[in-house]
Every structure is written in C-alpha cells, then in structure tokens.
C-alpha cells in the first residue's frame, strides 16, 4: 500500500470526505428513525419507547463503537473539509475581478464549506442542548417517572414511580441515592422501612441480600427522561418531571428548521458527490444516484424538521 498516496494526496482526502460523509448519511437515517418515536407513538408508550431507545443507544457496546465512529467521522469530515477549503482558497491567490460561477455550477456545490461549518455549529449547539445535558450534567437530568393509575379506579393512585431498566418500578417518594445520573442505590432508611414492611406482613427479607449494608448497592438503573427534555425544549410544560420549560421555543424551532434546510443543501450536493469522489460514476447508475440523493437530501432533513414542529404544535 502506498502510504503517502493514501494519506496525503488530494484524491485520498476526497475519499475520506466521501466515506465519512456517506457514513454520516447512514447515521442520519438511524437518528431520524429513532427520533420519529418522539411523535409517532403517543403518551406514556411513546415516552417509554423513546427513553428505552435512548438508553439502548447509550449503553449497547456495539452502538457505543458506532457512536465513536460517528464522532470521529464528524470530526474528520469537518477538519478535512476545512483543510481542503483552506488549500483550495490558497490555490487561487488572486481572485477574478468579475466572476459568474452560477453559469456553470450550483450554489450548494460551491458553498459546501460554508454549509458544513453551519452544520458543525448546529451539531455543537444540538449536542449541548440534548446530549451534554443527558450525559454529563447529570444532576439536572431527571429520570423517567410515571404516575400509577390503578385499573380499578382509574384515578391516580398518588404513586409516582421511576421506570427502571431492570423492570423494577421504584416509588419516587422512596429514599434512594441517584448517582452517575441514573444509577439507583439503596438508602438505609428505605432498606429498613422495606424490612419493616415485610415483617408486618409476616414476610422476611433475606438479610443476605444486603450483605454490604452500606449505600453501595445498586438496585436498579433509571431511564433518563430525554423525551421530556425534548418536549420541554420545544415548549411543553414538563415542570412536574423536573424540567424547566423553554420560554422561547419559537427561536429553538426556527433555528432547528433553518439548520435542517442547511443540512438539506449540504446533502443535495454531498450525497451524489461522495459517489463521484469514490469513483462510482456510471452512465446507467449515476443518474439514479443523483435522483436518490436529491430525494434523500429533502426527505431526511424534512423528517427531522417535522418532529419539533409537531412537538411545538401539540404544546
């Protein structure tokens, strides 16, 4: 393998752009399908489905690897793109006094770097808004809770339960300690009260269960409530779930939709361009790729944009 050629030549740079770009296209599809659960499934089921999905996406080892590939792709795509843009700028030190590029090429194709930079900024903001909050600002990230409605009465029982990954449902009123954002550890008080409660009903709890009777026993993991975070971000009142309601959801919505339009233009050139960069040009298939790319570049961002719009409108 010719190392210098595969790493540093102008064509190799294009391969990397194309490969990372196409991978990110795949990512978009997965991301969109997951996100659509936000609006396609109603009520508690939707919330549960989405939060379960979010949990899966952050915990499955395979997905984990995939997510690192995604981060690297985004970084590489951005850095490589910026390097290319700088190099390309340098290749013409003196500009034309009068230029008419629209006669020979489309605007998105000429402005990929600008569109891409805008998308990069969007990604940063987007991740700060959701990913960062979920992942690292753990104290502010409430867990998924729901109110029990006994079937007999249909009225709220007054119990609000955490919905956990182990299938246990734990009362929010109980005394836990929540660490690392969503790991639920027992507290002495709760343990004692549980033992007492068992006793009063003539049952016994095997003390072995709690051999280390300190607070280091994790009894369950709660689902982080990303669903409510999103809804609160786009204007829903989720204060009972512990989220601050966004007072200016219109701005969030507008910026999000704008970003999707930018993404659409970026994809409009980028999708089919990636195939060209990889050398996949064929008189029979290239027109199909171009058509598919156009449909893709419209449908995917549209799908993303619809979600906050629907959320906003159902406020």
């Amino acid at each position, binding site marked *: *393998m*010719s190392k210098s*050629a*595969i790493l540093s*030549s*102008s*064509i*190799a*740079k*294009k*391969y990397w752009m194309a490969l990372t770009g196409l991978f990110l296209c795949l990512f978009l599809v997965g991301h969109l399908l997951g996100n659509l659960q936000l609006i396609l499934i109603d009520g508690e089921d939707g919330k549960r489905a989405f939060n379960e999905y979010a949990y899966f996406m952050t915990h499955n080892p395979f997905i984990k690897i995939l997510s690192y590939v995604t981060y690297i792709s985004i970084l590489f795509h951005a850095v490589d793109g910026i390097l*290319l843009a700088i*190099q*390309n700028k*340098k*290749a*013409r*030190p*003196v*500009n*034309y*006094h*009068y*230029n*008419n*590029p629209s*006669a*020979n*090429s*489309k605007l998105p*194709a*000429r402005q*990929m770097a600008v569109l891409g930079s805008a998308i990069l900024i969007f990604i940063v903001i987007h991740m700060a808004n959701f990913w960062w909050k979920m992942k690292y600002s753990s104290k502010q990230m409430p867990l998924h809770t729901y109110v029990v409605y006994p079937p007999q009465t249909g009225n709220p029982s007054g119990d609000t339960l955490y919905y956990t990954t182990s299938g246990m449902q734990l009362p929010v009123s109980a005394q836990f300690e929540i660490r690392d954002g969503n790991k639920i550890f027992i507290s002495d008080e709760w343990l004692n009260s549980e033992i007492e409660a068992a006793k009063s009903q003539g049952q016994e709890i095997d003390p072995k269960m709690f051999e280390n009777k300190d607070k280091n026993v994790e009894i369950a993991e709660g689902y982080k409530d990303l669903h409510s975070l999103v809804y609160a971000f786009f204007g829903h009142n989720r204060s009972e779930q512990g989220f601050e309601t966004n007072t200016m959801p219109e701005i969030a919505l507008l910026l999000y939709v704008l970003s999707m339009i930018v993404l659409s233009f970026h994809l409009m*050139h980028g999708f089919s*361009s990636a195939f*060209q*960069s*990889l*050398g*996949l*040009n*064929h*008189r029979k298939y*290239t027109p199909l790729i171009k058509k598919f790319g156009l449909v893709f570049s419209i449908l995917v961002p549209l799908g993303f944009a619809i979600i906050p719009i629907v959320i906003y409108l159902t406020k």
Partner: protein
Amino acid sequence: MASKYINITLKVWRQKNANAKGAMETYKLNEVSTDSSFLEMMDQLNEQLINDRQEPVAFDHDCREGICGMCSMYINGRAHGPDTGTTTCQLHMRKFNDGDTIYIEPWRAKAFPVIKDLVVDRSAFDRIQQAGGFVSVNTSGRTMDANAIPVPKVDADKAFEAAACIGCGACVASCKNSSAMLFVGAKVSQYALLPQGRVEAKERVLNMVRQMDEEGFGNCTNTGACEVECPKGISIENIARMNREFLKAALTSEK
C-alpha cells in the same frame, strides 16, 4: 449571415510582467463586426492601441480553430466566455450586444502564474504529463501490429473522448478550487481505457496525481463547473475513473 457592427466597452486586465501589480483597464472599441471572432476583436483593439502609440494587450493564441488550446481568456466571468463547448478563438462577437461591457481576465490559479496581461504560464500541465502521461514504449515502430489487440469500440470511443482534451486550462480557471482534476482525469482515463495503457496504469495515476498536487492545484469538490466550461465537453466521469484508478493503485502498489 447579415453582419452587424457593435460598439463595446472592454475592461481588460493589464499587468506588465509576472512581478508587476496588475489592474483592470477600460477601453472603448467601436465598429466591431458581429462576424468577427473574439480574438479578431482583440486584434482590432490592439490595432487601435498601436495606432494610439500604446502597448497592445498580450494574449495567448495560435491555431484560432479551437484545437491548439493556447487561447485562454476569462470573459465576463467565464472561461472562454459565454458560449459553451467553445474556445475563445471560436467565440464570435454575435454573442454580444451593442453597448455591452466585456470583462477580460487571465486564468487565475496559483499554478498558472500570469506572465503578462492575459498570458499565463501553463507549464504545470506539461510537468504533469511528463510525470506519467505516456506509454513507456520506445519509438522503434517495431511494436506489434496495430490490429494485434482488438479494443472494444466503446472503450476506444471513451478513450478518444478523454483524449480530446486540448490542455487549455479552462477547467482550472473555472473551478472555484483551481483544481486540475479534469485535465489529469482525462489523461489518466485515456490510457486506463486502452490495453496499451493498462500495463503501467498504477504508476501512472500515482505519479501524475503526485505531480498535480505538487504544482499547487486545488482539490476537486465535484462542482462540475469544469465539464460545463470545457471546450471539448470532457465529462467528469473521467475524474471518477481517475479516483477509481488511484484507489486501486494506492491500495495495491508495493511502493
């Protein structure tokens, strides 16, 4: 062919030499026949300048029939002017109207430095060719018979379409990145499509691309401007073919 006469204003890049600072100068030119070619209009301008004891505009031109690739003007913001599939020498003044202002600039690229006025140095293309744009056969004529290897007509035709490149540099000039990939892609493709060229296909594409990068051309971002402005209509599928060839070569070359 009813010929008309038009009066035009020209804004022309003037630059004394490679190191001098240039600027756009304005000239008025009257009574230009619409049957004249663009370069004949330039002749007329120069005749006027000479008669006014001014220095004529230097520009490259030779065959004036669209094949030598020497003419190289950026006219009204486009390589070889408003017409497509045309070199400047084949562009005719009937494409312009009375009273028009026409901007004329040299090719702009780091790899094509201006020598004087509208004349640029395109020897970078020669060096790319020298890096691998050939089949390493000697010139004895004692090769095998020309018909010894049949070549599928489709491949021969595609090779010819790629070989139609006149090396004018319009692709570089019109590319927002000053990329030379259409030129190099066409050359690589011509040889890659023919059995005679396959033998050294790997070294060729690696060497030509390396030289291209060294010359300071930009990268291809697939805007497609080059194929629109190419006077010989060379398709960017040749760039794709080069990308393919390069990938194959880079992955399997033992160097």
